[in-house]
């Protein structure tokens, strides 16, 4: 070997690119140059003897391997499973007890519930309680916090929800169900859904007829009163979505698509998201530059008050309602 071996990284890259010059030179040389013995001329007896010797060697090797394999195989089938089971159980027990101990240790180290000098009793929550109403105009502190003081966090949370909805649609959507030429998977899903759909259940239909308007109205009330009473966009939207699901369950896709189609829900989602992003960008821009936003806060307690919180709540509620309903129909037959 006169020239040095190239570095490991170079050889790896060469191997990746099928470059033969960087292969292991020693090995290539040994494989390509014939050994001295094979070069020598052999008499037939010698040749036979060597063949027999090699044959014997191969047989011995084969038998030894077979025996070893049998030993391992027998051990694995008879004892190995049990041993592995014990190891698995022991490890599981160990890990579980470690986690339990760790969590208990953390729980013990927590400050007592509701104590006065707990870390959460600091100037931040004091500020929220003392001047929250003047600064946000919302009587419901929670709405003031999540849609005003900490709106940036809420924006991130909505992004997470949006990404989750996108991945569900990517995984479960089968295509446009209103198209003229549906695919085989869509037809199968359609048949499966028809097959399992409640067959005009009168009890369910009567209950839905009575309950759906009330549920939708209650959801809308929660959304509109988000800045005045407990609730807000997310919970109200979830209630409205549940109402739509009940209607769909009782009356089927055909009747529901008279007033709520995939296209409509998509447009509502787009517009609500864009409105949310626009409003929030405006308030981030003015807030970061210490400008007056010019949005009247109104009288706390009135329905038209608290600045941007009411429209933001409506946007969030509409998005959540559409998302819930879309999730439901996607789970059921991969489209609307």
């Amino acid at each position, binding site marked *: 070997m006169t020239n040095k071996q190239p570095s490991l990284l170079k050889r790896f890259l060469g191997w990746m690119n099928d470059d033969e010059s960087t292969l292991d030179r020693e090995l290539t040389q040994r494989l390509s140059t014939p050994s001295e013995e094979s070069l020598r001329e052999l008499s037939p007896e010698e040749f036979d003897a060597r063949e027999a010797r090699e044959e014997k060697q191969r047989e011995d090797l084969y038998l030894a391997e077979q025996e070893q394999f049998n030993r391992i195989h027998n051990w694995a089938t008879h004892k190995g499973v049990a041993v592995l089971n014990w190891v698995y159980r022991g490890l599981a027990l160990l890990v579980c007890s470690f986690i339990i101990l760790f969590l208990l240790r953390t729980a013990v180290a927590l400050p007592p519930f509701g104590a006065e000098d707990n870390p959460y009793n600091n100037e931040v929550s004091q500020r929220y309680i003392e001047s929250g109403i003047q600064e946000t105009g919302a009587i*419901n502190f*929670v709405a003031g916090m999540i849609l005003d003081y900490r709106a940036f966090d809420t924006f991130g949370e909505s992004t997470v929800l949006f990404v989750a909805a996108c991945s569900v649609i990517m995984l479960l959507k089968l295509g446009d169900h209103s198209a003229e030429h549906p695919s085989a998977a869509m037809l199968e899903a359609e048949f499966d859904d028809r097959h*399992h759909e409640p067959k005009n259940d009168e009890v369910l239909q009567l209950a839905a007829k009575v309950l759906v308007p009330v549920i939708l109205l209650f959801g809308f009330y*929660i959304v509109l009163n988000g800045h005045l009473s*407990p*609730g*807000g966009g*997310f*919970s109200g939207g*979830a*209630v409205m*979505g*549940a109402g739509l*699901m009940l209607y769909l369950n009782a009356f089927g896709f055909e009747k529901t698509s008279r007033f709520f189609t995939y296209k409509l829900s998509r447009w509502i989602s787009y517009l609500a998201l864009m409105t949310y992003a626009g409003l929030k960008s405006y308030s981030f821009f003015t807030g970061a530059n210490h400008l007056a936003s010019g949005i009247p806060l109104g009288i706390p307690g009135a329905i038209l008050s608290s600045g941007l919180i009411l429209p933001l709540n409506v946007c969030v509620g509409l998005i959540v309602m559409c998302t*819930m309903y879309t*999730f*439901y129909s996607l*789970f*059921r037959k991969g489209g609307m």
Partner: protein
Amino acid sequence: MNLFTVIVLGFLVICAIATSISKNLLVSVVIFMAYSVLMSIVWMFLQSPDLAITEAAVGAGVTSILFFITLKKIHAIRGNEEEDAHDK
């Protein structure tokens, strides 16, 4: 902590254990629903009605419905299987 709180918290623990050890998946989901309802009552005790409403709507309502559809899709609800066998 009054008696009612103790009872609700006790049922919460029972529901949590029963969800994980019940053999039937449908029963598991129904117990999980009960767990969510109890949890929303606990949120009321902890003075967070916002979370209570969300827990009741999402935890007990929407999540369970999605679980039900999934169980139906994988034919884990026994009534469906019998119906299918009858149809065939």
